[in-house]
């Protein structure tokens, strides 16, 4: 260690601030209503494009959740003049990128390339946006692959938590749905996608943002020639049911037996992106839980060591929003974590934040602001949000002023309005048998669900002792109805018989046939291990059910997939 010098003893003062140059934008509109925003930036020979439409997942037809995502996934999979492969090769040849995606409020087509290819990549943006052909085989492939990824998502506790929070907080508002279902995927046809594309991709519903090494005049001419003859259409107004208001606190426990962690989310409705309370709420959120120096992190991770990270989130969208506090904690400290969460949620409401906390939060928010404008992509993100959420044109210029203007009183007012621990929904994805008692002190209203999203009465038991029972309870033929997470049921026939070495049997379903490799009956509880033959490979499955006379009720799982609940009746 070197000798201590006095200048080392505390953090140095900053140098004089450097001016931030907010990039200059020029904005114009084509006759058909397409808004065009251009930022000329010739520092590097690059260009980035993003064409955004005010139509997102929230605008999916109620019976076809996931339609927008399928649509965006298919835009680059074929146009009237190019096949999927030709598009991929053309983009690859330029070393460029071209992609499309959606969130709940809007949809974008984005591209980037070296400046030398700025015209060619723009042609492709226009082609995939205006002339997608949605080939039947590509529609089928994306439906299949989406089903596969749904299956994987359902094994993720974070997905299950977000799904449940959205469902209970947004109610009938379309933000309540976060994923398609097997049923909606099956029901989606090419015709439906074509029609949807025609009705949502309208120039008068879009803004085209371009940043990079471009000449505005030449670029505008080219945009006019590519998009000028695109016919505007009628726009529908968002008319969504408001999220429900709740009078008291309640909990939704998604039972995931054996889960090593509890995913806790405490949520209530919040603000829209254009709320006049946005900046005070943002400051409040920053003090409470936005980052690793906020209160939630310092308490639950740094002091208590319950988690790798605890945060709040300000989810402010176009037509509704939520305020959430969340963490993934070790199962045994689920209750202790709730205690600390509620302590912090009460504290931010009941006590004014300190001057230092507010100044630190302001300094954080104004400091990270220019970091977002460093790249073309970052700048375009900001400009697209301004347009899609109808924020004021001077939003970037005035952002720091708005932050600085917020007062301690406004922060507390925002907390009292938008942090409502006594009316919050507590969502926990975790081991129900371990979590239930820990949760009870925090609310009497607890609803229990399985990972398929279905209500159930009690958590999966650990291993209760039950006396040996008579095999006749289970031996026979059963017709069972397996509920998938996606709404569509699978029916199957279960046959169980007894041999000298014990119970055995088989199961037949449209998904395939399986043999029981081992089975047992303890009390009324039947469990069996199954082996499926699929494409030459053995796949393991498990079945567990409670027999009640001629009825059976239980779960079946293929390999490590989530359990699917089933019910059945004895037919012989």
């Amino acid at each position, binding site marked *: 260690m070197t000798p201590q010098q006095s200048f080392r003893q505390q953090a*140095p003062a900053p140098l004089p601030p450097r001016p931030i140059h907010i990039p200059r934008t020029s904005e114009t509109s084509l006759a058909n209503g397409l808004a065009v925003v251009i930022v000329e930036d010739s520092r590097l020979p690059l260009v980035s494009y993003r064409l955004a439409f005010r139509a997102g997942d929230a605008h999916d037809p109620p019976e076809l959740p996931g339609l927008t995502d399928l649509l965006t996934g298919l835009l680059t999979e074929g146009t009237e003049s190019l096949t999927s492969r030709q598009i991929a090769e053309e983009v690859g040849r330029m070393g460029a990128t071209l992609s499309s995606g959606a969130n709940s409020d809007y949809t974008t087509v984005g591209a980037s390339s070296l400046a030398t290819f700025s015209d060619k990549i723009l042609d492709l943006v226009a082609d995939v946006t205006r002339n997608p052909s949605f080939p039947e085989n590509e529609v089928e492939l994306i439906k299949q692959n989406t089903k596969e990824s749904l299956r994987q998502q359902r094994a993720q506790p974070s997905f299950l938590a977000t799904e449940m929070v959205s469902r209970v907080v947004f109610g009938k508002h379309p933000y309540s749905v976060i994923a398609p279902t097997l049923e909606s995927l099956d029901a989606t046809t090419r015709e439906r996608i074509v029609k949807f594309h025609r009705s949502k991709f309208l120039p008068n519903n879009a803004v085209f943002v371009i940043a990079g090494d471009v000449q505005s005049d030449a670029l505008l001419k080219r945009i006019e020639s590519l998009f000028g003859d695109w016919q505007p259409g009628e726009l529908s107004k968002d008319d969504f049911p408001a999220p429900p208001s709740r009078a008291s606190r309640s909990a939704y426990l998604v039972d995931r037996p054996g889960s090593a962690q509890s995913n806790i989310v405490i949520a209530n409705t919040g603000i829209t992106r254009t709320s006049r309370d946005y900046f005070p709420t943002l400051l409040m959120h920053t003090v409470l839980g936005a980052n690793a120096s906020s209160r939630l992190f310092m308490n639950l991770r740094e002091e208590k060591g319950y988690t790798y990270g605890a945060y709040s989130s*300000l989810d402010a969208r176009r037509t509704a929003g939520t305020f959430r506090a969340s963490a993934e904690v070790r199962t045994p400290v689920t209750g202790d974590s709730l205690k600390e969460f509620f302590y912090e949620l009460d504290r931010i409401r009941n006590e004014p934040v300190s001057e230092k906390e507010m100044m630190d939060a302001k300094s954080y928010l104004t400091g990270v602001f220019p970091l977002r404008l460093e790249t073309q992509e970052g700048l375009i993100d900001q400009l697209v949000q301004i347009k899609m959420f109808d924020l004021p044109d001077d939003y970037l210029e005035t952002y720091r002023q708005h932050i600085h203007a917020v007062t301690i009183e406004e922060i507390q007012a925002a907390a009292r309005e938008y942090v409502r621990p006594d009316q919050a929904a507590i969502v926990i994805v975790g081991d129900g048998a371990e979590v239930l008692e820990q949760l009870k002190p925090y609310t009497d209203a607890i609803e229990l669900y399985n990972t398929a999203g279905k209500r159930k009465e009690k958590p999966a038991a650990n291993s209760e002792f039950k006396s040996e029972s008579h095999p006749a309870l289970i031996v026979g033929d059963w017709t069972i109805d397996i509920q998938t997470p996606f709404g569509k049921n699978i029916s199957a026939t279960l046959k169980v018989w007894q041999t000298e070495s014990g119970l055995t049997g088989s199961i037949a379903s449209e998904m395939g046939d399986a043999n029981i490799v081992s089975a047992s009956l303890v009390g009324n509880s039947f469990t069996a291990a199954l082996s499926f033959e699929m494409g030459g490979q053995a796949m393991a499955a498990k079945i567990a059910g409670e027999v009640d006379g001629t009825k059976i009720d239980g779960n079946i799982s293929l390999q490590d997939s989530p359990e699917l609940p089933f019910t059945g009746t004895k037919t012989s």
Partner: protein
Amino acid sequence: MAETFQLPPTTIQQFTLPNGLRVILSKDQSTPVVSVAVYYDVGSRNEKEGRTGFAHLFEHMMFQGSENVPKAAHFQHIFNAGGTMNGTTSTERTNYFETLPANHLPLALWLESDRMRSLKVTQENLDNQRNAVQEEKRLRYDNQPYINAFLRINELIFKNPANAHSTIGSMEDLDAATIDDVREFFRVFYAPNNAVLSIVGDFDEQEARSLVEKYFADVPGQPEPPPVDVSEPGEVARTQETYYDKLAPAPAFVLGWKIPSRRTPNYYALTLAAELLFEGDSSRLYQKLVKGDESVVSIQGGVDERRGPSAWYIFALPKPGEEVAVIRQQIFDEIESLGTLGPSEAEMEKLRNSLCNDAVRGRQSTMYRAQRIAEYALYDGDPHLIDSELDQYLRVTADDIRGAVSRFLDVDNRVVLDIIPAALVEEEEDLSEAESSQRAGEAKQPAAPAPPVPAAQSSSVALPGAAQGGNGQVHISSQQPAETSKQTDSGPSPFVS
């Protein structure tokens, strides 16, 4: 490709302090931000047998406070100034970095110099961080399908223990670390003469230089660390293994090859071969397997870039019911075809353009540049490679790629690692002791995850979600057919502001 591309030149000023600290300043006033990176020449390659995981454990220790910076204050200082930060560990080096509003440069230098000169290595901090690392291992490795198999493959590719073991290390070795080991590690490796400091962004060069001298000049130098032997024979340690993964929902496999060191002509050629085979929607294997045959859910790959013998991987997740052996053979055939016929004209054009595009686009970010510059200074003694290395890639010819593929993506230096869901096997027979101790994941969670992206070898310490170093040593590309890029996600993102 026999062409060059004129990158906008990077301003570089370099000097070395009398204590041996190498400093590179790169001024750029485009945005009023500054990025600072400190690279220490110590990674898992420097770890002795019985002390694996030490470099990464030490990375955690660097956030535990120093003479004038209390425990956990490091990230509070950075966040409260409006900055982002993190640290990562790879086989080659341990890095620490932050991006801040430009006028907070003194803060970054104060924080970095205080821990370089006066880190608090206490028993309490060691115990605490040992727990944190073990928690991280559980969360990121042991509780994830496919990830531990991906670590296993390095143990099959490399014979030299310095190369073979993972950066996360073993629980037993971590438990064995004593406070004296840690103090000695700090003295030997965290010396100014074993580090590079790079600063990129909006600053006055004179002022930056005098700040660097003020904060770093009196940190004492140390004798040079002991040399590292990373030499390897050409063949791999073992060519075939089966890994039973308790968390994997479906069978998958990893293929790995031992290849020459970074910055050699064959390394360049093989990196470009990787691009042609599995990077992006136009790559050969994506078009063949994900689109054409529709037989795999995802195919991914990467090149592990090292100063010594390096590695080249492919990971494939077949669709349920597809014949794994057939898919594997198709991959071998495609590699063989590239090694026989070489890339097409169109593929060479694609390589050229994507090299130039990536080189230009990456340098928009000051952090990207700070990290690359530090890396080139540390490994090669030449920070100007940030501009000039591109030409070395552009000089690679189609015949170079053909030759390197046929020579290095061969059978003798290849490992085939099958990943079988352990659940499948348990139903029928108990795993033999040897197999089950092969660290099949221990966690009980029912299942798994979104499309598996094997973890890069570097681990980041402090924060999930904080700015990650863009340049981990393993470059992984992920290709998911049904995924479209969620570039507009900032709306519903939980951290929107």
